[in-house]
């Protein structure tokens, strides 16, 4: 708990200083994308890592958020400061509606139905031309006076910090423990008074909200939104990030997001091979590091006999 919080704070300070050290626009773009993925991976991790259900439909919330911001901006001319929070709220509402159906299912059924919802939304985006402009997408989304990559960087850093703050509070709260109880053992959870559906719903809606924020930001940053935002390729990238970094930890998805963003960029030259390589990486992780890089680090610490800072009562009193 304390260890995780300190790591996050150090990462935040590092991220705040980064744009003062790096002025190259290309590198700043990479940093913006990495932070964008940090928000997405963190939001998916709430569902995969803490509720323990594998959602393949997370792009539904990313896309809903992106289209919400795009429509509000192109039609009503609203600035980013308004569209992004609204995008989060609309995505959260979608999360509630989709969760109300899917969270009654578990295991493979949940996986398939969440995937179906994302696909349905992609088809809607593709075909409801009056609103979404179909495959042409919505272009020319206003940038609200943000011209410099560095300014966008601070916006997405603020969103990432918000996402991690909310996650941190949730995970270490009574509600987060209830979600973990459902993940670990549905029967025990019920016998101590946890409503499994309600506990999962909280994490699911929170994840949808964050993904919606990220989507809203994406719309303004790229200044174009098309049906691709619902595509499975996005989903696959986010999953790899969560699995590689370590699901069920807060630091894991950050590490995963940064590594995968850089890999995607620097493996661009080997276009076709890139996906094959990702496939191999995922297989290797599932086989050798089932808890991801952070799980591996935690285990190494245990083996070295260093006292892991667990939530002991004595420690908490000093907080």
């Amino acid at each position, binding site marked *: 708990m304390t260890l995780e919080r300190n790591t996050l704070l150090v990462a935040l300070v590092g991220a705040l200083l980064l744009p003062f050290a790096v002025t190259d626009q290309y590198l700043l773009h990479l940093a913006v994308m990495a932070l964008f993925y940090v928000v997405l991976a963190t939001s998916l991790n709430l569902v995969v890592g803490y509720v323990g259900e594998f959602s393949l439909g997370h792009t539904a919330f990313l896309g809903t958020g992106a289209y919400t911001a795009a429509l509000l901006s192109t039609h009503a001319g609203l600035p980013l400061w308004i569209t992004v929070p609204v995008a989060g709220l609309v995505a959260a509402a979608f999360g509630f509606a989709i969760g109300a159906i899917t969270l009654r299912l578990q295991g493979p059924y949940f996986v398939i139905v969440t995937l179906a919802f994302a696909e349905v939304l992609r088809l809607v985006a593709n075909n409801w031309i009056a609103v979404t402009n179909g495959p042409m997408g919505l272009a020319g989304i206003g940038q609200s006076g943000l011209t410099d990559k560095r300014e966008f960087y601070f916006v997405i850093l603020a969103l990432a910090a918000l996402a991690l703050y909310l996650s941190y509070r949730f995970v270490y709260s*009574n*509600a987060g423990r*209830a979600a973990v109880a459902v993940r670990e*053992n549905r029967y025990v959870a019920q016998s101590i008074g946890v409503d499994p559906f309600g506990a999962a719903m909280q994490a699911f809606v929170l994840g949808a909200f964050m993904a919606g924020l990220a989507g809203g930001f994406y719309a303004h940053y790229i200044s174009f939104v098309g049906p691709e935002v619902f595509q499975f390729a996005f989903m696959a990238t986010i999953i790899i990030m969560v699995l590689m970094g370590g699901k069920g930890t807060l630091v894991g998805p950050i590490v995963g997001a940064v590594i995968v963003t850089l890999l995607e960029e620097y493996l661009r030259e080997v276009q076709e091979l890139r996906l094959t390589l990702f496939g191999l990486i995922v297989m290797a992780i599932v086989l050798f590091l089932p808890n991801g890089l952070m799980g591996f680090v935690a285990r190494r610490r245990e083996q070295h006999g260093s006292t892991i800072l667990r939530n002991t009562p004595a420690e908490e009193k000093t907080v």
Partner: protein
Amino acid sequence: MNALHDAEPLLRADNLTMRFGGLTAVRDFSFEIMPGEIVGLIGPNGAGKTTCFNMLTGFYTPTEGRVRFKGVDITNRKPFAIARMGLVRSFQKTNVMKRLTVFENVLTGHYLDGRQSLLETFLPGERVRRAERAARDSAATIIEMMGLGRRMNAPAHLLSCGELRLLEVAVALAAKPTLLMLDEPAAGLNSHEAAGFGETLRTLVGRYVQSLLVVEHNMGLVMSVSDRVVVLNFGQKLAEGRPHEVQANPDVVEAYLGKAAA
């Protein structure tokens, strides 16, 4: 017994019947648990004990019959809603959260004490911090009381069988039950461990829980701990009474050992 019957029972099951297709697992089973009582529920394998447990705690909805807890009909309520009323159970197969530590397990058990609004989750105030501290202190106290103090920070999957049994009870106690129901809590314990476990159970009643229902195969444990024993056989109540009465009951002896040679 008569004195007890004047009081309102804490739990009352009336004519419970559970059918799975053509199989009747439990038939017309009625019994009561009084405040302050330790009741043992015994019976040969397949007698319907666990089915009864599941009906009482909402995991099964009985085909017929009603369950009343604290005077309220809970027959069709969901398990978590019943737990919130103060009826908490353990499970037959060891059921703890294996990847969490002993402390985290018991802390999680305090869920009902620490429920909070969404706003409080994200902007915790003094009230939440106080509840959190109280839950942590209480978790530590329960763990010490169950004799798991040394294992406080051990992951549950590293515990021995006996320690797991104690942890299960500790998690259930953390939910502050009025009536605690334990399904074969001593399974896998040797007779020495079981005796110690029985001692622990006796100290719970009155201090941590009002009443206790124990399903158990270990006769020594049931007979020494229970105030009253209910015997199930083939899904029906065979006998009921004080431990020594039940032990002397010829029907019970027959159910367990078969008919004596004439």
